[in-house]
């Protein structure tokens, strides 16, 4: 007896809320664009000129752009829990759980809203990267598909963020956790170097690291155009999202208690 219509209504309203927020204040997005661009320009240029990393003939800045994009999108998402904590401290969440909408839809809606915020972030980074000379496949279908991958990836991480927020409940504890999650996953993925160059234990870890599949799918769509294994990436990303949403919805009640 799952209320599909009601859930869709709530999810789209949550996404609209986030779009309106972004429209009112974009400064945060601009500030957050600085770090990924530094990765691309400074790190990408230096490592590229060393030619220390075998990228299969792809220029190094091209190679890392998908990773930098996924890193920046998931960073936006992982801090979305702070919004939930603010809404918990104010009365917004109490009001939402007393409203006629499924709690699952509140969680998925908020996570997808964070996905939209992450998309705006990427729409700032991507044109600059192209101007800097990164060879992005400019086929609109590929680009749209890549943005969709970014969207559901960020949504999954935002779900994780909401789940962490319902357990930690406090702003102070939360702030540290964000970076502690993103950076290890970033470094233990194929974002900056091919998996084959990693030590065995990291190779094993990268295989269960959702970020690996997110980077891999984005790289296939934006840079290499080789879609032969993208179905594996998509299954992995969707499985991650479903599992995280289930977890976050299950524990969401705690956030208001």
């Amino acid at each position, binding site marked *: 007896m799952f209320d599909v219509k*009601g859930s869709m*209504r*709530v999810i*789209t*309203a949550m996404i*609209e*809320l986030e779009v*309106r*927020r972004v429209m*009112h*204040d974009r400064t945060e997005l601009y500030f957050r664009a600085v770090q990924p661009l530094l990765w691309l320009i400074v790190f990408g240029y230096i490592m590229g000129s060393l030619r220390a990393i075998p990228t299969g003939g792809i220029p190094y800045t091209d190679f890392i752009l998908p990773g930098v994009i996924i890193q920046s999108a998931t960073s936006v998402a992982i801090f979305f829990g702070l919004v939930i904590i603010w809404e918990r*401290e*104010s*009365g*917004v969440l*109490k*009001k*939402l*759980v*007393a*409203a*006629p*909408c499924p709690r699952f839809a509140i969680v998925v809606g908020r996570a997808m809203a964070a996905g939209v915020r992450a998309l705006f972030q990427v729409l700032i980074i991507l044109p600059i990267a192209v101007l800097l000379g990164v060879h992005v496949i400019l086929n609109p279908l590929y680009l749209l598909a890549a943005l969709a991958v970014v969207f559901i990836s960020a949504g999954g991480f935002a779900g994780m963020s909401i789940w962490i927020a319902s357990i930690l409940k406090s702003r102070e504890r939360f702030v540290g956790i964000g970076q502690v999650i993103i950076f290890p996953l970033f470094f233990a993925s194929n974002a900056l170097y091919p998996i084959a160059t990693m030590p065995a234990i990291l190779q094993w870890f990268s295989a269960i690291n959702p970020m690996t599949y997110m980077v891999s799918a984005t790289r296939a769509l934006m840079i290499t155009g080789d879609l032969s294994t993208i179905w594996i990436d998509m299954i992995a990303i969707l499985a991650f999202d479903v599992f995280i949403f289930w977890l976050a919805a299950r524990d969401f009640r705690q956030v*208001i*208690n």
Partner: protein
Amino acid sequence: MKAIEVKNLSKKYATVPALKDVSFSVDEGELFALLGPNGAGKTTLMRILTTQIDPTSGSAKVFGNDVRSQSGEVRSQVSYVPQEMSVWSDITAYENLLIYAKIYGIPAKKREDAIQSALKTMDLQNVSGRMVNTYSGGMVRKLEIASAIMVEPKIVFLDEPTIGLDPSARKTVWDKLRWLNRNKGTSVFFCTHYMDEADLYANEIGLISKGRLRKIGTAEELKSSVSNETITIEATGLDSGIVRGISGLPHITGARVTGKTLRIMAINSDEAINPVMNLLISTGVKVKSVSSSKPSMDDVFLKYTRGKGKEQETAIADIKRARDRIRKA
């Protein structure tokens, strides 16, 4: 139909009891106040009634629907304004209402009308395009109430609706809520620890302290249950014989003279005054002045919650909450 029916309701947080065996009912169309000191369990009761948390035992129904087994039905008939700020401050007031209208599923055709009429009711039409973070505390409260009434609920729950507001904003909020109650027939259930608000605005008051519902009734009923009314007479020529005579009259429960002051305790001072005056005049007492006082809501509050709350905390908690509201607004 009863708006609210609560039977033997108890709630424990882990092992801490917050509500103990609470039973009462509220009729449809009432403006009901739950009055009690901080920590009495008011918010807990309200959150159970709005299906946010489950009771530990007992049952609660809102318009006949059980808060546990029919929580969906309950949610579609109620609106809830929490004590804390419950609107998004980084979008405009209009956008807040728009998003809530969509969450509640008001059909697209009716949405604009619903929003405009809620804004109009709360006198916010001219400022609806402003960002909420430029609003005063009173305006935020009005917007919260606008968003609660926009969905045309059968009952509105408000937790400490005027906390942190200045007197004129408090009055506006009450004028609006009373208007809604009278003209739209919306039932109103509010929590407060301000005795004057319960006294002035509620048709019926439930007094709660330490998780127990101590007393329920109209303000008049509560007051007359507390103590007698007092008649104070200033006069010359008073003596103990007169005191004995007065004590024997109907409606009188006691009398005492101190110097030129005669204090009489009466069940009903209006009924008691004539026989008293007749007796005084017939014994040659010269009366200079007569006054009477009825018990106030303070007396009621003190009698039923004395030593049972944390009253010294009230002021500090108030200030802290008011600050929080300002900081977040």
